């Protein structure tokens, strides 16, 4: 069994996890943008605003479930440990960047920023962290 998460030599579980991860991530972006456009263009009722704001959370829950499923089924303890460490690194990076951007967003007259979805930032951070971990343990 040759496990290399970033060299396309994935186990069936890892391949399935990556597919679910990607699909949920794309769905999060689509639903977030869709909900934003809907609220902006149609001026819906307060109930509909609350409802559309809830929609992007569904794939986020999907991502959490996907990661949980992977960690529960991964039989290689070492690889599982690397993934958990990468998740913690990504969580830290997301909190730090989110706190920083939150400070900048408080001054929209000075800083014109593109909103970044925390889940996208988290997923990209996980990918980078896993890659670094595997490189360190090559």
């Amino acid at each position, binding site marked *: *069994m*040759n*496990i*290399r998460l970033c060299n396309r030599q994935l186990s069936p579980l890892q391949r399935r996890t990556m597919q679910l991860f990607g699909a949920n991530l794309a769905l999060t972006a689509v639903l977030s943008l869709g909900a934003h456009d809907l609220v902006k263009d149609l001026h819906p009722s307060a109930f509909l605003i609350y409802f559309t704001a809830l929609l992007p959370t569904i794939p986020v829950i999907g991502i959490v479930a996907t990661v949980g499923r992977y960690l529960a089924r991964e*039989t*290689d*303890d*070492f*690889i599982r*440990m*690397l993934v958990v460490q990468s998740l913690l690194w990504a969580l830290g990076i997301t909190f730090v960047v989110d706190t920083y951007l939150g400070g900048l967003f408080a001054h929209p007259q000075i800083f014109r920023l593109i909103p970044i979805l925390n889940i996208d930032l988290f997923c990209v951070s996980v990918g980078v962290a896993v890659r670094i971990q*595997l490189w360190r*343990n*090559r």
Partner: protein
Amino acid sequence: MKNRLRVLRAERNWSQADLADRLQVSRQSINAIETGRFDPSLPLAFKLARLFETPIEQIFTDEE
């Protein structure tokens, strides 16, 4: 925790990848165990003991 994994593997002329295949784990796991950066779980330690037909305590020692 110290271990004799590298020696036992060398005696059988197995590469890290060979051993990883037999244990159904990644080569990175074998490398991490051999270099002392990762202690295997009990099930994996028992698997190693069965594979090398050696008691666990002759593969792993808890000396610093």
